[in-house]
């Protein structure tokens, strides 16, 4: 498809602006004036509509295709929550910071406060800040809170411990806060072993970051023991909430001993992933960390909701305003829709679907950690690799059959990993059809392994040359 810039015709106009109702101002002096207008496309409104509509058709998405992308929780995005977000679209975020402005933002602040309360109850934490803008931003905020806690206590800490199965964001977030990383290898039963963890501990460890269930989809039965060991060194326990979809109503990280948690509202709470964002990464903490929460902090007073802005122990602002507010309206709407029983059913059905998928496919793909899984299961294509067929090849086969592939090559500790997360919103028929195609892929790997190289064959492009992209660094169109 042509780029929008390649469709540009000099003099063609799109949207018309209102006529000015004030006199024209004097021109800016020449040293401040742009020499040439930016070369934006010159296209009609219909050109714009047709271009982006046709571009959209070159995507697989949850609304058009099964999308079992492990660790991303690609569940159905309820349409009614979109209408809910529209109710707040015209609200300016500085209003509550103006003198007398709080009364113009009681609805918005109340919604954030209410969402915080609901998330605190779901996770067993004492308070939630909704400011972080995405999961990784929440992780960084959480580690900053931990750093502030240690600084206030005069603790000298250098390290953050992560298991080797962790999301890459965990060590990267800790590094953004200046910590060095200690990585713990995964035990044969697929999780971080308390004894291996204890061996790595010292007074210099600030925190341990865990995902539970972890990226293998396994629940670590020793998490309370690990939290206790960490606390005995005055290290804090960080819960990566990426996989919360598995355990709502079953386990609350706060009950188990975790001190800080981030959530991904775009995963567990059904807000759209938007082709890579906006997400939202609220952070929950235990009482000891409340003094360090970001400002402005929303507090409930007799007269209504107010903002605490001058807390000297706070880590400060982590973002411009109050976080990705529109995303939070949708998540709050989702919680209202599902309610207590609905959220429990979500986790039960997500776990049932993943175990069904695992049971049906384990005769065809290696399952390096063969235990009851939670919301996702991780296979290895190692059997197919012996025929020269890799996880990537199987992914391309799936694309041709109309499926968005599972996550591949993650977690890094599984060779040619294929990580499947069906989510609770998929029907059994959809899963059965997907399972059938996965079995076909396994059979083709045996009968005609060479056939995969040409796949996908039905898409607008076949496999793309990534080396060429990295070498040419063409990230901005130079023509027209």
């Amino acid at each position: 498809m042509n780029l929008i810039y390649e469709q540009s015709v000099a003099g063609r106009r799109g949207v018309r602006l209102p006529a000015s109702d004030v006199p024209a101002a004097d021109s800016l002096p020449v040293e401040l004036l742009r020499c040439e207008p930016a070369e934006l496309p010159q296209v009609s409104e219909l050109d714009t509509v047709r271009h982006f509509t046709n571009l959209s058709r070159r995507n697989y998405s949850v609304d058009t295709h099964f999308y079992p992308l492990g660790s991303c929780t690609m569940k159905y995005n309820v349409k009614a929550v979109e209408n809910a977000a529209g109710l707040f679209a015209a609200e300016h975020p500085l209003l509550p910071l103006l003198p007398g402005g709080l009364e113009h933002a009681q609805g918005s602040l109340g919604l954030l406060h209410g969402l915080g309360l609901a998330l605190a109850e779901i996770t067993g934490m004492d308070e939630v800040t909704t400011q972080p803008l995405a999961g990784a931003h929440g992780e960084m905020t959480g580690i900053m809170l931990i750093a502030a806690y240690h600084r206030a206590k005069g603790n000298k800490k250098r390290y953050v411990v992560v298991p080797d199965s962790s999301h890459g964001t965990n060590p990267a977030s800790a590094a953004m806060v200046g910590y060095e990383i200690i990585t713990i290898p995964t035990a044969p039963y697929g999780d971080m072993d308390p004894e291996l963890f204890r061996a790595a501990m010292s007074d210099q460890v600030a925190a341990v970051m865990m995902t539970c269930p972890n990226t293998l989809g396994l629940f670590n039965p020793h998490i309370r023991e690990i939290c206790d060991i960490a606390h005995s060194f005055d290290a804090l326990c960080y819960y990566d909430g990426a996989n919360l979809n598995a355990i709502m109503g079953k386990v609350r990280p706060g009950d188990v001993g975790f001190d800080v948690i981030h959530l991904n509202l775009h995963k567990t709470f059904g807000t759209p992933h938007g082709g890579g964002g906006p997400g939202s990464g609220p952070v929950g903490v235990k009482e000891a960390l409340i003094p360090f929460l970001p400002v402005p902090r929303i507090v409930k007073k007799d007269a209504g909701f107010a903002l605490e802005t001058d807390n000297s122990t706070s880590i400060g602002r982590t973002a411009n305003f109050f976080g990705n507010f529109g995303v939070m309206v949708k998540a709050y709407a989702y919680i209202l829709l599902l309610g207590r029983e609905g959220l429990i059913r979500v986790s039960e059905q997500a776990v049932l679907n993943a175990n069904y998928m695992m049971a049906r496919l384990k005769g065809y793909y290696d399952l390096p950690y063969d235990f009851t899984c939670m919301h996702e299961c991780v296979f290895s294509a190692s059997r197919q690799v012996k025929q020269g067929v890799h996880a990537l090849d199987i992914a391309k086969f799936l694309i041709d059959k109309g499926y968005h592939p599972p996550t591949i090559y993650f977690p890094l500790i599984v060779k040619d990993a294929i990580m499947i997360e069906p989510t609770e919103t998929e029907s059994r028929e959809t899963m059965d059809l997907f399972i059938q195609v996965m079995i076909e892929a396994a059979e083709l790997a045996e009968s005609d392994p060479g056939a995969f190289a040409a796949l996908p064959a039905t898409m607008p492009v076949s496999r793309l040359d990534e080396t060429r992209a990295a070498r040419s660094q063409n990230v901005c169109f130079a023509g027209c």
Partner: protein
Amino acid sequence: MSSADYCPTTPQEVREMLEVIGAATVEDLFAPIPSHLRAASFDLPPGMSEFEMLDTLKGVAARNGQAVTPFIGGGCYDHLIPAVVDHLAGRAEFYTAYTPYQPECSQGTLQALFEYQTAICRITGMEVANASLYDGATALAEAGLMALRATGRRRLVIDGGVSPFSRQVIRTYLANLDVEIMEVVSLNGGIDRDALLAALNDVTAAILVQNPTFYGTVEDLTAIAGAAHGQGALLVVSAYPISLGLVKSPGEMGVDIVVGDGQPLGNAMSFGGPSFGFIGSLKKHIRNMPGRIVGETADGQGRRGFVLTLQAREQHIKRQKATSNICSNQGLCALKGLIFLTSLGKEGFRELATLNRDKSEYAKGKLSAIPGVSLVNSGETFNEFTLRLPRSADQVVASLLKMGIAPGFPLGSSEPELAECLVVTVTEKRTKAEIDELANLLGRELETVGF
């Protein structure tokens, strides 16, 4: 009625699936979770239908009270949004997809992001751009970190014209790192060039400025860029994207890294989010750039296609050695930005900027003519300017808010010595009638207390 849970599986299917798994009940699947770890509480209300949910949230939204006419900006702006923006970005194929890890079935998102990167390069005058960051403030913090990596130095000079919110975010980002921050106070709403250049030295990684400044002054940064380069430092600017339709681009001024908040480009104010941060730079800095980058390439048959590229900078590969921990971008918000810029086009974008300046100049003339009121900015402004009132701006704002107008952002809370100052924002959406009304009310307000 039972709650909506959007799970289509019937009880009969659940039984059959359990049989395949070899479990008796769904609860058996949770056996790996020992009983002593089970939730102590899960106290939430019962679910509701979408109609009840919308009624509930309409009630919550109503507590925001009557709409206020905003003459405030400060990082979030009330601009027109053409209808095509939400209609097209609302295509489910865009908004229910995720990060385009599998390029063959994500060419829609990838090509759109490539076109977005191109638009950012063209309005900023930069050579490369990424696929977006979270917001303008975090983008500026990331640009500061990028400059530290690119120069191998540990010192940043931050101009006082940078939004106080962004300055707070930068301080938060750097609080645990061994980096020296030098803040320079503004002069008459603009950059105090002598003070800024005096703060620059040969261990400075970058100067961070905002253009126009938080107080509204538009600056020519050419000489500052030259001075920074003379000391081996970079010049980072946070730019207001709408101003780039009229104001000389950062690229033309010799800037090295440009960031900004993309909300004004087709994203609703929505109480401050979601928005997106943009970042562009000279090509030589691309390997130090944070976040997703889309690149052009081709398939085996020579057909053009787009992929995520230079991923060896990123956390999913480099883990703690990555250029940033950022994992997602603000894909849908950036897409809205692209559709916004496309629908306005080359001429429309310039006209929009001109309209902002015209309205703002008109308001500036009317408001600064009120007895006792003076203009703080000694330099040119775009669509924001700062007034000095004859008394506390806080009281004035509180009074006018009661009449349904937010007349500006008073500076007393962030800068006590500027307690009489008010930053006024006038976008193209403010009508002459609204501006006249503001001038009227402000004049009367200042009169009535016997100034």
